C-alpha cells in the first residue's frame, strides 16, 4: 500500500502531467472569463449584480443546442446564440432594468433571483428535463498529441477563444472611445455623466455585450459539459467568486480571477481532493481578508 502511495505522488509530479493539468486549468479559466467579464464591468458601471447571469449562460447553451440540431452546424450555433442572448438582454433592459436603475441593491437581488426561477422553468418547458449535449465541431472533434499525451483539440480551441476574447476586449476598452467612456464610467459614474457622457447607454451596450458573452460561454461549454436545467446555478457562484476576487469593474481583474479559480479548481482536485469542493471559497476568503476590494480594484476602497 505504502508503495502505491509513493508511486502515485511521483506520477503527479511528472512535468507532462502538470502541463496537461495546466491546460485543463486554462480551459476552465477561459470559460469563467467569458462568464465573469460582463458581470464584472456591469457591476463596475452601475453597481448592478445580475444574479440571472448564469441563466443567460444556460439559455445560450440551449439555444445553441437547438440551432446546432436544426442546422447541423456548431459554428452557426456559436454565432446565433450569443446574438440571441444579447438581444434578449436588450429586451430585459428595456422592460425591467431601466425602471430599476435607481432601485436599491436589494430589489435588484429580488428581481434577478426571480428571473433565475423564471428562466429555469422556461428552459424546462421548452426543452424538457433531460440532459443534452452538443457535439464538438468536426474540425475540433478529435484529439491532438501534446507532450506525448492525448489532448482533446476542442479544449485547445476553448483556451484560444478565451485569449481571443480577452485581447479583443482589452483592445476595445483601452483603445476605443467607447472603451474610454466605459472606463470613465467605472472610475466615477457621476462625474462621467456630468461631463456629458451617456453612461446609461454605455451600460446598456456593455450589459448586452456581457450577456452575449455569457451566451457564448454556454455554447462553448456545451460540448464539454452537458446541457441541463440547473447548469446555471452550478456556474453562477464560481462566476461571482471570479468577479469578487479579481475586483469588480476591471477587465484584467476578471481575467486574473478566472485564471486563479481555474488553476485552484484544477490543481486543488488533483492534489487536495478531500477539500476540493471548498478550496475556491477558502481562496476567496483569504484574498478578501488581505485585500478587501479584490486583487485589482478599480476604485480605491
Amino acid at each position: 500500500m505504502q508503495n502505491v502511495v509513493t508511486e502515485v505522488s511521483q506520477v503527479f509530479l511528472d512535468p507532462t502531467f502538470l502541463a496537461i493539468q495546466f491546460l485543463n486549468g486554462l480551459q476552465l479559466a477561459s470559460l469563467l472569463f467569458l462568464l465573469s467579464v460582463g458581470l464584472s464591468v456591469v457591476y463596475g458601471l452601475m453597481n448592478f449584480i445580475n444574479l440571472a447571469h448564469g441563466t443567460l449562460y444556460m439559455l445560450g447553451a440551449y439555444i445553441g443546442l437547438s440551432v446546432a440540431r436544426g442546422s447541423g452546424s456548431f459554428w452557426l450555433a456559436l454565432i446565433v446564440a450569443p446574438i440571441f442572448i444579447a438581444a434578449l438582454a436588450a429586451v430585459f433592459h428595456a422592460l425591467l432594468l431601466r425602471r430599476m436603475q435607481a432601485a436599491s441593491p436589494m430589489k435588484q437581488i429580488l428581481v434577478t433571483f426571480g428571473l433565475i426561477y423564471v428562466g429555469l422553468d422556461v428552459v424546462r418547458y421548452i426543452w424538457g428535463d433531460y440532459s443534452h449535449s452538443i457535439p464538438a465541431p468536426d474540425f475540433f472533434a478529435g484529439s491532438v498529441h501534446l507532450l506525448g499525451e492525448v489532448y482533446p483539440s476542442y479544449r485547445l480551441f476553448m483556451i484560444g477563444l478565451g485569449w481571443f476574447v480577452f485581447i479583443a476586449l482589452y483592445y476595445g476598452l483601452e483603445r476605443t472611445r467607447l472603451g474610454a467612456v466605459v472606463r470613465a464610467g467605472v472610475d466615477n459614474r457621476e462625474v462621467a455623466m456630468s461631463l456629458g457622457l451617456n453612461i446609461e447607454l454605455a451600460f446598456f451596450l456593455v450589459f448586452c455585450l456581457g450577456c452575449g458573452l455569457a451566451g457564448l460561454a454556454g455554447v462553448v461549454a456545451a460540448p464539454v459539459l452537458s446541457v441541463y436545467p440547473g447548469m446555471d446555478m452550478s456556474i453562477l457562484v464560481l462566476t461571482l467568486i471570479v468577479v469578487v476576487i479579481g475586483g469588480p469593474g476591471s477587465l484584467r481583474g476578471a481575467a486574473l480571477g478566472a485564471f486563479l479559480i481555474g488553476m485552484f479548481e484544477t490543481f486543488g482536485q488533483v492534489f487536495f481532493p478531500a477539500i476540493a469542493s471548498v478550496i475556491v471559497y477558502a481562496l476567496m476568503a483569504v484574498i478578501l481578508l488581505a485585500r478587501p476590494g479584490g486583487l485589482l480594484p478599480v476604485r480605491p476602497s
Partner: protein
Amino acid sequence: MKEPLLFVKDLHAWYGDSHILQGISLSVWQGRASAILGRNGAGKTTALKTIMGLIQRHSGLVRLGTLRLDELPAYRVARAGVAYVPEARGVFPSLTVQENLTVSARPTQGDWSIERVFDTFPRLAERRGHKGKWLSGGEQQMLAIARALMTNGRLLMLDDPTEGLAPNIVEELNNLLRDLLDDGLSLLLVEQNFEFATNLSNEIYVLGKGRVQWSGSASDLIANGDVTRTWLGV
C-alpha cells in the same frame, strides 16, 4: 440688467428621507461669477449636483439661456453647456491625462481644443501619458478644470476648487479663472475659501439649512458682519 445665463428658481431636492434643498433661487450672468457660500452641510454641493441633474430634482425651475434643464438627465445638462468641476476633482484615475481630456471633448461647440488646453496648462502636456491617479493635487485640479473646458460649455461650475491646494496654486487658479471670465465664460462657484470667493465673484449667495439666507454683492457681504457670523462662522 440683462436676462441671466443660468436662472434657478425655487429648487427643491430630497436625499432619501431628508429634504436637503428647500427651495433655492439664484442666477449667474454672462461673463460674471456667482458664488455659493455656507457652512458644511448647508447644501452647497447638493445645489450644484441638483442643477447638474445628479440628484433627483423634486420641483423648481432651472434654465440655461432659454433652455429648461430641470427635466434633463445629467449628461444632457452637460451637453447643453454646463461644464462641471466636481468636489475633490473627480479625475478618472484609470484614464491617462490625455484620455481624461478627450473622453468628454466636444470640440465642435467652441474653441477649447486639446492643443489650446496643453498651451494653457503646459504641465498637463508634459504628463499627457500619465494615468490620472498619479497626478498631484494641484495637477488634478488643473486637469479637472481643463477637462471641463474641453466640453466647451457656457457656464463653468466649480465645487470647492481651492480645497487642499497650496497658496501659490490657489493664486494661479485665481488668475486662470479671471482669464476665463475675461473670455466671456460664466462661473458658478461653491467655496469654503471666503476670500477667494469674494475676490472673484460678483454675486454671492449664502446658503444655510437648505435655503438661500442672504444674497447680494461681495462688498455688501464683507460689510455685513451679522450674516458672516451667523451663516458662515467667519
